[in-house]
């Protein structure tokens, strides 16, 4: 199902995006505006499913439209030329993912030289991801070759769904995502500075709590910059540097023990503080004498390092991309379009369509076959 007319445009753009280089947000924005205006013209001022479908068909096959933009390029080994861009993107992302995991592992104390083969956690994660993707590519490409059915212009093929992996990574940060960073950064920083919270932690961790609170406030400032000015090199640089500071902080954090010393508990009349060390013996036993807590602490640090390394690498790639376009440090950048993190909250757009065996009929009378040949 294609959803609302605007959703059909977005889905078509996703198909175009699959075949474009990573630095193609401008091209996609330009095409989006074109499709909206063409659909409005065809629908006499109104965007309908029919007018969007016609606008998309007039614009052409997504792969050809993308290749016209990007240039077909050269064939690389056995890879057909039109699949070079998606392959480059997937390889870049795998390398970045691998680098982030290796750095995370290094910080938590697992050296790459200690690893015989690639069986040790967490090094096996990027390798497993890469192998899974490879198997998936072989299986999906095989299925796609067998499958003769073409998708309508607004629906990705199975192969495109695979080739499009990771294309979301290079979209600019959404404005409301940036706003959420501001709110969460300030709230968490404030929480860390509250006395009733601080007394829960070991005294030698309080200095780190202050540093974490400052970094959270800097995260909030970064969110504010993205909220105001969208994505530009200064904001990306700020994000990369901040990510670096988090990674350095994690190198200290990994050397201290689990910092939470006490927790609040309700004794039936009031909230009281209970020291973890004073927990009944069975519970302590259950936790494996704090070994599990130490492991949890290491996993937490690992996650912070991996996410920040990822942020550093993606920001660096974007900065290089913008520098290549002769953009300076600061400009009024764009925001990504809101991501539907909770798809079940966005079903209302599908209410104006009905599906039957021979296709989907929309409220404006436009009928879309499930088996339209690509134009």
């Amino acid at each position, binding site marked *: 199902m294609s959803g609302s007319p605007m959703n059909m445009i977005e889905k078509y753009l996703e198909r175009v995006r699959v075949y474009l280089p990573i630095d193609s947000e401008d091209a996609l924005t330009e095409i989006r*505006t074109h499709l909206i205006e063409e659909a409005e013209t065809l629908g006499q001022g109104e965007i309908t499913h029919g007018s969007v479908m016609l606008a998309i068909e007039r614009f052409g096959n997504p792969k050809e439209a993308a290749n*016209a933009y990007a240039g077909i390029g050269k064939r690389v080994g056995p890879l057909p030329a039109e699949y070079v861009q998606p392959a480059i993107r997937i390889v870049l992302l795998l390398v970045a993912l691998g680098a982030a995991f290796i750095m995370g592992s290094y910080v938590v104390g697992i050296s790459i030289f200690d690893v015989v083969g690639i069986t040790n956690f967490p090094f096996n994660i990027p390798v497993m991801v890469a192998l899974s993707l490879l198997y998936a590519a072989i299986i999906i490409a095989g299925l796609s070759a067998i499958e003769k059915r073409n998708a309508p212009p607004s629906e990705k093929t199975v192969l495109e769904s695979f080739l499009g992996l990771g294309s979301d990574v290079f979209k600019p940060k959404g404005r409301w995502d940036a706003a959420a960073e501001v709110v969460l950064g300030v709230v968490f920083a404030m929480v860390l500075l509250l006395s009733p919270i601080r007394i829960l932690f070991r005294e030698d961790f309080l200095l780190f709590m202050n540093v974490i609170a400052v970094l959270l406030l800097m995260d909030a400032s970064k969110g504010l910059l993205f909220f105001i000015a969208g994505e530009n090199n200064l904001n990306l640089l700020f994000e990369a540097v901040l990510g670096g500071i988090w990674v350095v902080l994690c190198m200290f954090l990994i050397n201290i023990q689990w910092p939470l010393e006490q927790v609040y508990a309700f004794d039936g009349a009031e909230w009281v503080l209970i020291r973890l060390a004073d927990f009944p013996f069975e519970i302590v036993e259950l936790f494996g004498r704090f070994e599990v807590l130490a492991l949890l602490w290491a996993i937490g640090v690992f996650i912070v390092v991996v996410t920040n390394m990822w942020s550093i690498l993606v920001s660096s790639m974007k900065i290089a991309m913008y520098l290549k376009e002769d953009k300076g440090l600061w400009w009024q950048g764009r925001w990504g379009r809101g991501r539907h993190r909770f798809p079940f909250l966005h079903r209302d757009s599908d209410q104006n369509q009905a599906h039957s065996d021979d296709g989907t009929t929309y409220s404006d009378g436009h009928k879309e076959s499930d088996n339209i040949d690509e134009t």
Partner: protein
Amino acid sequence: MEKSRKNVLEEIERWSKEIKRGAASLAIVAILDEQTAYGYEIVKTLGERASFLQLEQGTVYPLLRRLEKRKLLESEWNYDDPTKPKKYYKLTADGKMALQMMTETWSVLSDELKRLIEGDDSQ
């Protein structure tokens, strides 16, 4: 006979594509010499005033991008309507010079071909 006609039509189609490819750049530069415009405006103007080009809509944007890369055009985003950001293109000084030279070349080419086709070899 049918096969021969098909071959001719295919050849005409190829030749026509090549002619249009060169003419499209000139048409776009000429439109932008009159006023700055964004992609959709250029597509519409081409459709109205240069219908002989019969350009597929999707081919105009890559052409604009290439002309911009070659510094014949420069662009600026307009976000007045945030739902439809528009990339406005205008001719650069190099673009104006290129337009002048392209026009002269086109004119010479057109005149000479016309004379050649009509069999006038007085010059």
